[in-house]
């Protein structure tokens, strides 16, 4: 593109087609084939597209969603003139395939990593300590909180009809909310920690999303590398919220639906994106968070509403079919409190780990709010060492049953 600027559009299109083509073949071919088969059957025709797919198309390479987006961001940034292409082909492949973030992100931008690859970085003892600390924290998030919460979640989703009580389902969905958050955030922390040990710096991917006071804010805190990617390479090129109001909403819907589709080739993920798009539309239209902030407890109520929206959306993300998702949503909003009094006793583990998850987030909020008072105690070697020892002990003795990272499937 740099050598032939008059043909850079052609190169861009070729790159995008190559990347998206690979993604389409390996990740979405079955989904598209099934959808077309279903449509044809509805119209009275019989097609067997799924059976006609070659076998290699049925295997999804690990991390394809992540490195494909990284590759596209590199090409697009060069096209836009925001990045100069690297002269070192190994740097390019290192950027694409750096192992800490290869399988499940974060989606690193070329402009953030390439310059680091070109530098000779010294890895200080402090950096090693911070890297290890990040990794330990990541393992704690994943092994202790996410894996333990996953026990009840997985068991419940295996048989959704077993317990229809309202409170039980709120508890399960709360557990899943924290499971997916700490699972992914844990992975990211480990990836960032590993990168730090090698002398590289990755941006944070999660900024305590469940403390958001609006859904818009939630999306600036959740999976930041993906949401900013969609913002920069889909939403803004489509026009963002410039121009007619309806166009802004349409662009937002397209972005959220594509974000859902990125997560998986299934209707459920698209519906998950749609739920977020709908809630974001309502928020944009009514500006309800700003209105609520004017009242006492308004921020708390706003936080609660965001939490409910996100939690309900997670139902579509986790359910295996749309029917299952609708059944669960029905259970969430059917006032059936039978058996509530024994929930704590019956699901003691889940309650404890949910409390720990909430406690972890609460501790962060308290530290942030009372920064000056707490920092003298928490920014000490003793505190660090004690915390690390506690977290390592928790990882050893309170680890949940080993489970694959949730975002590995994407």
């Amino acid at each position, binding site marked *: 593109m740099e050598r032939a600027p008059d043909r850079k559009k052609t190169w861009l299109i070729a790159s995008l087609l190559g990347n998206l083509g690979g993604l389409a073949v390996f990740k979405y071919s079955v989904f598209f084939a099934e959808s077309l088969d279903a449509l044809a059957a509805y119209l009275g025709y019989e097609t067997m597209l799924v059976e006609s797919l070659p076998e290699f198309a049925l295997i999804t390479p690990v991390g394809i969603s992540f490195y494909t987006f990284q590759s596209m961001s590199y090409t697009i940034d060069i096209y836009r003139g925001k990045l100069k292409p690297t002269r070192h082909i190994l740097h390019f492949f290192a950027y694409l395939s750096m192992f800490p973030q290869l399988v499940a992100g974060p989606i690193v931008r070329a402009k953030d990593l390439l310059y680091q690859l070109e530098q000779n970085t010294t890895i200080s003892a402090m950096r090693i300590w911070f890297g290890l600390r990040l990794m330990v924290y990541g393992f704690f998030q994943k092994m202790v909180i996410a894996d*333990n919460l996953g026990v009840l979640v997985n068991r419940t989703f295996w048989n959704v009809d077993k317990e229809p009580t309202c409170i039980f389902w709120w508890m399960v969905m709360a557990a899943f909310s924290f499971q997916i958050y700490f699972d992914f955030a844990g992975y990211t922390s480990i990836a960032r920690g590993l990168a730090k040990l090698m002398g590289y710096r990755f941006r944070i991917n999660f900024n305590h999303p469940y403390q958001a006071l609006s859904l818009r804010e939630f999306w600036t805190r959740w999976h930041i590398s993906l949401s900013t990617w969609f913002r920069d390479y889909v939403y803004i090129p489509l026009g963002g919220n410039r121009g007619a109001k309806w166009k802004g909403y349409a662009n937002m819907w397209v972005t959220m639906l594509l974000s859902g589709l990125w997560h998986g080739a299934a209707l459920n993920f698209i519906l998950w994106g749609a739920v977020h798009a709908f809630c974001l539309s309502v928020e944009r239209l009514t500006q309800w968070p700003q209105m609520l902030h004017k009242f006492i407890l308004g921020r708390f109520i706003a936080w609660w509403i965001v939490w409910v929206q996100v939690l309900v959306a997670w139902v579509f993300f986790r359910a295996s079919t749309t029917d299952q998702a609708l059944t669960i949503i029905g259970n969430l909003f059917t006032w059936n409190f039978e058996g509530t009094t024994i929930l704590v006793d019956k699901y*003691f583990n889940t309650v*404890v780990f949910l409390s720990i998850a909430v406690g972890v987030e609460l501790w962060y909020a308290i530290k942030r709010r009372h920064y000056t008072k707490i920092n003298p105690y928490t920014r000490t070697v003793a505190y660090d060492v004690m915390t690390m020892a506690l977290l390592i002990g928790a990882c*050893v003795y*309170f680890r*949940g049953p080993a489970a694959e990272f949730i975002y590995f499937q994407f």
Partner: protein
Amino acid sequence: MFPSLPSSSMESEFFWANKSYCDKRFDVVFIGDSRIYRGINPVAVEEGLGSKFPLRVFNFGYSSVGLDTGFLNAGADLLDVHSAQPIIVLGVNPSSVADENMDNKHYTQEKERSAYTIWQRKYINPHLSHFNPTNPEMVRNELEGRKEGYFQVHYDNGWIASDRQPRDITKDLWLLERSFDNATIDLKYIDLLLKKVRQWRAKGIRVFAFRPPASKAFEAVLNRVSAYPEQAIVTQLKAAGVTWLPIDNRYNYTTYDGSHLVDTSASRLSNYLGQAIKKALLPEKTPLLYTKQGFEALATEDWTTVEQEHLNTTTYQGDYSAAVAPNAFSSTLQVNLGKFAVSSVKIKSQCWLRSKDSLPASPVVLVAEINDSTGNVLWQGQQWQEQCLRAHEWNCLQLELPNVPITPQTMLKVYLWNNGSETVLLDEVEVKIFALE
């Protein structure tokens, strides 16, 4: 110092590796399926045996075991060759003699593990198990003394102390109804078991056997779906040299699923078995009378004379057996029990029978009659059909009268009565009379 929490998977792996590749040797080995490895506490057996028989006991139970020769040999290999009293105790139930279980998948799986895996599980796991994970519920249950869910503690002696809360002894009955859909009790495996028992006996190994207790409903369903010929198997095992251990009050043991004993009941049963084995190991009392009719001579003391034409050269032992025609009686033992200066006796009788041609067992009865001056006071018969496995082969028929009060005029008669329409062959009729304390 720390609460003893239920075993982890690492401890389970060590347990099975240690059992499958055990370096130690023992005096007593219990062999059987999951009802053995959950139901027999070797320490409690040793306590039951007491100081008179300080024997080392091991539990060689595996899941879904079939008592095939290979598995039996593996269990017997754990006996100490220098043991003064080598003993094998078999847990026999319909499942352990079903053809479906003869491949012993669980045992085979353990034996097929790689050398590295075995080494890791035997030598590394015990150290890694110090890092076993726990969870808040387990800690709470331990502190409050609760047992919830599946509770298992693995012991080095081969026992898994088990319980499950809540207990439900009927939940799996529907599964049990289907358990013999594709399985049968193949008599060839019984033959192999009997052959193995005889080999052990010939080597001086005492062999005991029992049916592990389960819930009444469980046993009823299992007996029905398996058509388990229990009496026949028990009799033939006894004839081969097994000391059968009947379980008194067998439904008084608590199971958590109808089939497997909870840990406390397992210990109680084990202690009971230990005591029963101890009693059996004590020298047998000399019988007041021991008499045998082998039909080698026409006239034998205490027995009625045999007619020459009733002799047959197809024999269980020796040169002759007796052919008992339809609706006829065999040579009869007649003994005056009053000549023994005791108030009551135990009478054990047995004989060997087979059908003359390859016919099914006919209604032949081994009879013990007690008469006194008033007439017949007791008539007890044991049907051959109930104890016979294969009528065209020699099968043992046993009859026991555990407690017979006697007077000076009490007369005992023992004979075989052929109530069927086919001739049967009879050999080696034995009667033992013991004084009761």
